[in-house]
């Protein structure tokens, strides 16, 4: 009883803000929150790992990511897609990490890193087809929205069960080492996922065998309605590295430059045979968990507002302003372009048939259908022919 109250009081005191520049606790000092972009937008040039061009490019990616998320939530509200889960407020974490990896590196996402798939070349309209589950869906309508895969970009298949991708990333990186390839895997997961079995086994296997993998935790403060303090009693997520004898770092996840620099370091350590890195990116889930969620039921508006003020896009904008690379009107232009891009993608995607053909229901269960799938397809075809209601909602 007492304990739960303590937690809540601590929470109210701190408002779930990361203690920028080192908190009170021992582990917060041992794993200091690294930042690059100061509040006024300035940055120590020695700490900046992006060229000006790359910085502007990633800024635009962040704007596109935000635009996609906002627009898709709208489409969901309009009933044009059934579900959406995005990364509003976490753009610096997602894009900073993916940009810090090399082209040949494999990505093992959780379910908010759609910008990673797009960054790796998944056409936006193909992404929207996945949301629609229509005849253009690369997943053949097999998965719910936001569970895309994009093999051409080495972006693996998203699944819902939490943290399963972590040991999978370790396995792929291990395979690459066995093959002698220069490939470091990146895997993303939430702070809630660190409670799951597979975070534990993934980190432990990677530690013992020094597997080149970057384990990027999007610590966004919440796992649906469960606050980070009820997820684990550890002061930081980064310190969990200690349990596995691996390297841990904590970085301001709303600071794209900080995330990028940390990812580069982590990739380098992996490639150099020094093993995995647990990279805690401290950020915040500004919106509901997904379009199915209403966060007002479990958290305060003040907490959210405090974090809105720390928006990673504003932060990056300030840096680019300080560098005189981007002015306010440029941002407006970028935004308009992103809007346009999204509009066209939705148009293109909605042009496909709303349903993939019925045989796709049985495609890919096995490399070749067994007799059961063949018989059942025939059975279904016959049933639809006999009564078309078989294929339609009530």
């Amino acid at each position, binding site marked *: *009883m007492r304990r*739960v109250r303590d937690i809540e009081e601590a929470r109210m005191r701190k408002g779930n803000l990361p203690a920028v520049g080192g908190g009170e606790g021992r582990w917060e000092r041992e794993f200091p929150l690294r930042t690059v972009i100061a509040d006024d937008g300035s940055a120590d040039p020695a700490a900046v790992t992006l060229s000006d061009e790359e910085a502007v490019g990633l800024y635009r990616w962040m704007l596109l990511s935000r635009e996609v998320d906002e627009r898709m939530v709208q489409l969901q509200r309009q009933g044009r897609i*059934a*579900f959406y889960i995005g990364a509003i407020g976490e753009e610096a974490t997602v894009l900073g990490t993916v940009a810090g990896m090399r082209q040949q590196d494999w990505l093992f996402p959780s379910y908010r890193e759609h910008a990673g798939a797009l960054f790796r070349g998944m056409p936006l309209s193909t992404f929207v087809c996945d949301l629609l*589950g*229509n005849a253009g*869906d690369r*997943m053949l*309508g*097999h*998965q*719910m929205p936001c*569970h895309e895969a994009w093999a051409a970009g080495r972006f693996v298949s998203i*699944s*819902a*069960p*939490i943290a399963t991708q972590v040991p999978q990333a370790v396995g792929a990186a291990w395979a690459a080492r066995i093959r002698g390839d220069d490939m470091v895997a990146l895997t993303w997961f939430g702070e*809630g*996922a660190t*409670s*799951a*079995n597979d975070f534990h086994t993934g980190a432990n296997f990677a530690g013992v065998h020094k597997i080149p993998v970057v384990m990027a935790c999007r610590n966004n403060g919440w*796992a*649906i*309605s*469960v606050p980070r303090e*009820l*997820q*684990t009693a550890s002061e930081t997520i980064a310190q969990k590295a200690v349990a596995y004898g691996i390297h841990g770092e904590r970085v301001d996840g709303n600071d794209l430059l900080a995330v990028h620099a940390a990812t580069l370091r982590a990739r380098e350590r992996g490639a150099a045979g020094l093993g995995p890195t647990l990279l805690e990116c401290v950020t915040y889930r500004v919106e509901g968990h997904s379009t*199915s*969620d209403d966060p007002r*039921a*479990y958290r305060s508006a003040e907490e959210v507002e405090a974090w809105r003020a720390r928006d990673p896009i504003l932060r990056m904008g300030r840096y680019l302003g300080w560098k005189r690379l981007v002015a306010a009107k440029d941002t407006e232009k970028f935004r308009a372009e992103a809007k346009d891009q999204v509009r066209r993608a939705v148009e293109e995607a909605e042009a496909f048939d*709303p*349903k*993939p053909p*019925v045989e*796709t*229901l*049985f495609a890919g*269960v096995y490399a070749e259908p*067994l007799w*059961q*799938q063949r018989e*059942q397809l025939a059975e*279904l075809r016959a*049933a*639809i022919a*006999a*009564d078309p*209601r*078989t*294929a*339609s*909602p*009530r």
Partner: protein
Amino acid sequence: MNIIQAVNDALRLEMRRDPSVVVLGEDVGKFGGVFRASQGLQEEFGKERVIDTPLAESGVIGTALGMALYGLKPVPEIQFADFIFPAMDQILSEVAKYRYRSGGQYACPMVIRTPYGGGIRGGHYHSQSPEAHFIHTAGLKVVVPANPHDAKGLLTAAIRDPDPVLFFEPKRMYRAAKGEVPEGEVVVPIGKARVTREGTQVTVIAWGAMWHEADQAVKEGAALGIDAELLDLRSLQPLDIDAIEESVRKTGRAVVVHEAPRTCGFGAEIAALIQERCFLHLEAPVTRVTGFDTPFPYTLENEYLPRAPRILRAIREVVAF
């Protein structure tokens, strides 16, 4: 009252009645569960009896087991039945076997509540029906209500049961199935099927959300002159084998409906039992109308689910056999 309210009501009443009842799981506390089944319970019973756990189903069931050993009656929630697999070791190796393996020295009764089934556009990680795994595991009971009354009455019975119970809630019907439910205590004994329509030509066997599809099919069949008997099993383990035998002895025909994939689903067991026990009465093969042998799909879920048109088709084929 709808099913979600009925579940909430049963939990609340049992928690009032028995201080050893505790609820735990992901998001069940302050939020009241993602489907709001435990809404208001933390306010009433406090944070030590309505517990928000970290994100680990194995931990939810493992700690629930320890609580049960110590004498509490835990009612853990698994947020979606699809997410029960991280807890399989605790459920199959531990919960199911504890009484047996200790020679009866210990027992760990608990009710594992979990929403199951498709029809909500959830794709294959928010739509599965994994009941067969648990029916195959001796030591567990498996219960599936189809309506608010049974949801309340069966959940109450499950909480009072001396054995561990898997309580599968048809999430598609959470708000869609409405009905009168008495205030105060309602107990529906576990192990008794419900004959929801009497008939002479064919026995249709269903449970949970699919009972509603079967009901529609049976009604459409009646309009076509087919006199079907419909059973809502309610409890899959223990199975009301007497009700099934009695009905099939009368009708000579049976159609079994479930959402899970056909191969090795519970329909196989029911078919096997019927032909073992009613062989000389059978006038047609026991026929299964089920989900297909694929992962649960997203877009084509209407095609995938064994809904009324396919059930009716099977009924007609069986009757015409």
